[in-house]
């Protein structure tokens, strides 16, 4: 039960902000074999495609979004030589400069941690049903794609 609870904390879609220190500790404490931790933090920027952005909000498909993040973590653990991975995404209104998405990967060595971390964020952006609406001087715009 405790293991399941801990694993559910490693894949989350939530409205509230998160503490990077707490999430880092969550991964670090999973194993004393971890010798390298790579992290990607996505934050809300104040411009997009040449337009100013004053605020943004994320819509998500409750259930499917969590399912896809879980699949990403499980595939990363299978396909890369890593020890632990955490995948977290926020939804709802997010202020400029705030945290949006966090990937943390712990491995014995840095090369595997870096590779898996990049794969996780790239995959998340491809398969996770989350949509971004930006508030710009032209009004509210749903963002279709980001490289």
């Amino acid at each position, binding site marked *: 039960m405790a293991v399941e609870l801990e694993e559910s904390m490693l894949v989350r879609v939530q409205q509230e902000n998160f503490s990077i220190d707490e999430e880092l500790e969550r991964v670090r404490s999973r194993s004393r074999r971890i010798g390298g931790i790579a992290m990607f933090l996505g934050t809300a920027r104040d411009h997009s495609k040449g337009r100013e952005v004053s605020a943004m909000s994320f819509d998500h498909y409750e259930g*499917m979004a969590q399912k896809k993040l879980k699949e990403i973590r499980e595939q990363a653990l299978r396909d890369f030589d890593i020890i632990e991975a955490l995948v977290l995404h926020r939804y709802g209104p997010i202020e400029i400069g705030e945290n949006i998405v966090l990937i943390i990967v712990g491995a014995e060595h840095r090369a595997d941690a870096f590779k898996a971390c990049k794969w996780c964020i790239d995959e998340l952006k491809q398969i996770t*049903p989350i949509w971004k609406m930006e508030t710009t001087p032209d009004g509210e715009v749903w963002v279709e794609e980001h490289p």
Partner: protein
Amino acid sequence: MVKIKLFGVLKTMVPGGKDLEMEIPAGGQVRDLVHSIQGEYPQVGELLDKKKVLVSVNQEIAHWDTVLEEADEIALLPPFAGGSCATWAREGV
């Protein structure tokens, strides 16, 4: 009668931005549902036709020949915030 969840930009394309309810014939497939949507909501229908919007059934991407049941959880998915058309091509639909 099946319920269809809408997300993102699609909410701006139907009155009130609410989820849809549509009749499907017994043994109906996703293509039948798409046909009904094209009739009632042409703007959404056009995006489905161009494969800019995908259909998911029970939280998995569906194909046009996927058979639907009333209890299915159906959703229309516009391109994801971080995705691209490559996502759609990858799903092979």
